[in-house]
């Protein structure tokens, strides 16, 4: 039963009395450390080709979560995910689905974890929130700018809780770096450098396997393609390496924009805005089926004049995020936090200074917010704004000219050619839901 259905049946306390139904046993409300069954967050997962399994295992470790189902278009992935859940609970209760619509029709879910190729993000996520589900969704937020705005609007329309997999925000290094910057430890920020990976990485071990062949029987390839243009099956096109093809993903730029650029935004207080000018260059493969840039350089300017460079494959831009200010710089990556002057990294932010949203566990933050209905540390609008910079970078690279952007209205100014790139056409029979 969904937790809100149980909660709806609880008697309402009389006005003036403690709002605590006396008939409910204390243990049912989590006293003595137990998680009451009514307070379980009932979850399922969609997509187990790469990140989905890890996300699920994190949620399985939360005593407040009850995981009931898995959904994937690949029977092998589906079986592995189901077995993981059953082993965790020591039963055989985990349900399996190949169609996300059937999963949502169950009616007993509170939330869903979505880790599917980018080209599916918007359709599945909007359908999820329309069905009253809170979502833990992987980045990049969506596959185009227009999809991003549509999904943000849908999350708001249905009053759902959204957490993006931008988990760096729940990591101490990044939190500290951003608080230092926000509290002016380096003075006015004059420039930000965001270093992302370059090239294509063979996650699935299928590079070069581009022979056209029938899809394997365990994969519903036609559905896997979904709204993307039809392309004949070859091993190198799917599972994990799909991200190197712009029909399904956005290469390293879009894979990582929701990490290090997201942190750049957080440190600057730019979570709800975007650049006003974008230009970029990219280098592309000249053979093979992958068409995302292997090397790229995107320059953005924000309304207050702050430039942010996003680059992959340029050693002069260090991997991670580096804010360069009047009085020094701060750099952060997963492996470290450094500053000039060096003492800055040891500085403590006092209680009377700007304190950023603190989350020590990205998954727990989502679960807590599902229960409290508060904003997560990486909500939809923030994720959209981070991804938007990547999309604009792709547009600028594709258009080959500087793009003027109005972040308030989310429109490209004076460039009808570039406007065509704000959204994608969907292959039949798929359509953007509402």
């Amino acid at each position: 039963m969904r937790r809100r259905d149980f909660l709806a049946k609880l008697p309402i306390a009389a006005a003036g009395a403690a709002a605590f139904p006396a008939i409910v046993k204390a243990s049912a409300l989590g006293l003595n450390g137990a998680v009451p069954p009514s307070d379980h967050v009932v979850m399922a997962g969609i997509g187990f080709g790469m990140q989905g399994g890890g996300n699920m295992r994190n949620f399985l470790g939360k005593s407040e979560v009850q995981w009931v189902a898995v959904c994937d278009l690949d029977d092998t992935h589906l079986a592995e995910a189901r077995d993981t859940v059953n082993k965790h609970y020591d039963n055989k209760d985990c349900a399996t689905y190949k169609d996300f619509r059937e999963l949502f029709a169950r009616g007993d879910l509170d939330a869903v974890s979505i880790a599917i190729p980018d080209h599916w993000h918007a359709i599945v996520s909007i359908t999820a929130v329309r069905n009253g589900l809170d979502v833990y969704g992987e980045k990049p937020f969506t596959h185009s700018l227009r999809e991003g705005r549509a999904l943000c609007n849908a999350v708001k329309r249905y009053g759902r809780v959204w957490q993006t997999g931008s988990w760096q925000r729940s990591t101490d290094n990044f939190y500290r770096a951003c608080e230092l910057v926000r509290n002016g430890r380096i003075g006015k920020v004059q420039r930000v450098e965001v270093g992302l990976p370059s090239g294509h990485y063979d996650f699935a071990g299928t590079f070069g396997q581009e022979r056209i062949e029938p899809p394997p029987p365990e994969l519903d390839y036609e559905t896997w393609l979904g709204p993307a243009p039809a392309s004949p099956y070859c091993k190198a096109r799917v599972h994990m390496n799909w991200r190197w093809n712009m029909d399904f993903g956005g290469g390293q730029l879009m894979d990582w924009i929701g990490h290090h650029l997201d942190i750049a935004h957080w440190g600057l207080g730019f979570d709800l805005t975007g650049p006003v000018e974008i230009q970029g260059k990219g280098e592309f493969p000249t053979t093979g089926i992958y068409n995302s840039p292997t090397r790229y350089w995107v320059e953005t300017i924000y309304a207050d004049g702050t430039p942010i460079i996003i680059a992959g494959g340029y050693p002069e831009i260090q991997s991670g995020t580096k804010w360069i200010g009047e009085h020094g710089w701060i750099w952060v990556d997963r492996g470290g936090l450094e500053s000039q002057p060096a003492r800055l990294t040891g500085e403590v932010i006092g209680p009377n200074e700007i304190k950023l949203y603190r989350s020590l566990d990205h998954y727990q933050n989502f679960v807590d917010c599902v229960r409290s209905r508060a904003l997560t540390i990486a909500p939809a609008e923030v994720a959209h704004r981070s991804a938007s910079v990547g999309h604009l970078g792709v547009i600028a690279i594709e258009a080959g000219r500087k793009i003027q952007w109005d972040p308030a209205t989310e429109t490209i100014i004076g460039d009808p050619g570039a406007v065509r790139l704000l959204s994608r056409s969907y292959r039949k029979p798929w359509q953007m839901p509402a």
Partner: protein
Amino acid sequence: MNKADPITKTTIAIVALMAFAVAVSSLPAQTPAGGASLDQILNEISSFAGGIESAPFWKLRDYVYARKDVQAERAECETRLLEFLGTNATAVAKMAVCRHLRLIGGDKSVPVLQGMLLDRDMADMALFALQKIPGTTADRALLQTLPKVVGSVKTSIIAALGDRKCSDAVPALSGLLRANAEFTGAAALALGEIGGESASTALLASLPVAPAELRPVVAAAAMRGAEGLVAAKKTGAAFSTYEKLLADRTLPRSIRTAAMIGKISTAGDKAATMITDQLKGGDPDMQEAAISKIKDVYRPDAIGPVCNLLPGLAWDAQVRLIPVLAGYPAARVMPAVLQAARAGAPPVRVAALNALGSVGDASTAPFLIETAVRATGPEQTAARNALALLRGEAVDDALLAMLGRKPSDEAMAEILLAVAERRIYSAKSQVTGCLDSTSPRVRVQALRTLRTIGTPSDMTTVLTFLLRGGSDSELAEGATTINALAQKVNSPDGRSNAVKAMMTRTRDPKERVRLCGILGRIGDDSSLALLRAALNEESDEIVDAAARAIAGWPTPAARDDMIQLVQKSKIETHRLLALQGFLRMIRSERYRKPEAAVADLRMAYVYSTRAEERKLILGALPNFACPEALELAGVLLGEPAVKAEAQAAIDKIRARLSAR
């Protein structure tokens, strides 16, 4: 205009051009286009199957890309690509062409693409391009084709009309809403996307007769359309839409909740009353919708009525409402929040305590301390977090005052914790005074707090405390505090001065043992001489403490001392510890010349007698990949106890050597 102006203007133009050239040249170069003609490229891709022979695809991309911004060349490209669509080329090749028409196609492309819509196998690729061609010509083409196609092709054209926000399509789409269930969903979504009052009217009219499984889609589309009405400042029409949806109790809960959110958003002056009505109503979903809109509706000075409702709500609604209240001025909400923190259900108390971190003040501090003492688990954590977050120096003063009143030991410990979290440096003398407390818990917390607010000048006080003795855990905490204070000394060579001074003053073996341990923790190289001397003392305990300190030394300055211990100590434990420390030191120096590091590892090998240390050697070798490392690993390959590790090391070293 004077004679200087033209020159000035020219100069400015030249400078601007130069600046532009510099800016452009500072960007990395784009991949250049190939030299083949378009005919040659199209000929190559005509048999393209979308697999390994994809080089011609990139040639086409580069060719079109290089010409897309030059009008005449773009037009020529468009013409040739359209001609290609009429040939016998593969579907994949034609799709490749349509990708480019998506970007460069104009009105000229419309007729050809429109014709392709009638072919089910070509419709997708045609739409891929046509959907993005701006202008009414493309709109008309889609509308004209709509009645001529069936099935999923029709659905796609419907979707395209919606994506293009083609208002001319509203009549046709409205007709499809009710005429044919096959297209109801698609037509509804398209109408919602297009928006406007006509679309909205059509959607609401079709809702009662829509197939059951599609009613949520139609309703969702109606809400999407309502958002468009709001954007067009037609709030009344939007409100009406939401009201109608809300009245339909057969719609799913998620839709009705969204309709309530929308209704409140468009209710204008009535929104506040609507919110309180829903809060009182008791329907959890409607309450949730109402709570989500509070911050948009209630001004800071008007939140009172909502606060008054808080105690009467179900506990889960309180849990959701309290964080919202925390965003309001403290004076308005604190009484309600404080009451919830005192008297609510456990989850409510936790939520309220968290909120007090934002809305509390100095007067809240005693309650939070009392709660931190009394509670456990999430409630205690919430109280402590709130204490850390309370803003204002008055809070600091309140905590200091509480400290001065000598509260219970439990309360004292919580206050000391808050002092640390809040960095109340002015409390230092009181905190050091707590080292004399009779309560072990207070003493330990005082030690921990001093790590944050203490300074190097406090080291002597803490040392004196340590040398008095105490439980092992307290001594360990004290040593950690000394080290923390020592690390605040700027000069690395001065960090252990206080400890060294105490070492010269005391002859008590127990005290000297403790001091040796602390010197090892601090790792100030200038104290190595003292430790070396301590190795020659008569007391076995002091010798042991000195040896352990040297073996655990954090810098390379103790290298020779470690080697001395390995080679000459009569105590096997000391030799072993020193060897492990030596290996740890080598591993940490990853920027040494490989040959020098391997020479040290070889020496360590000579003195190692156990498999554990030899495995550490093998673990370190790949970090210093060189022929000498390979040789040493090869020697260890012959030892059965470490054979697997040796082979792994050899493989890694070889891989690193060949990668260079």
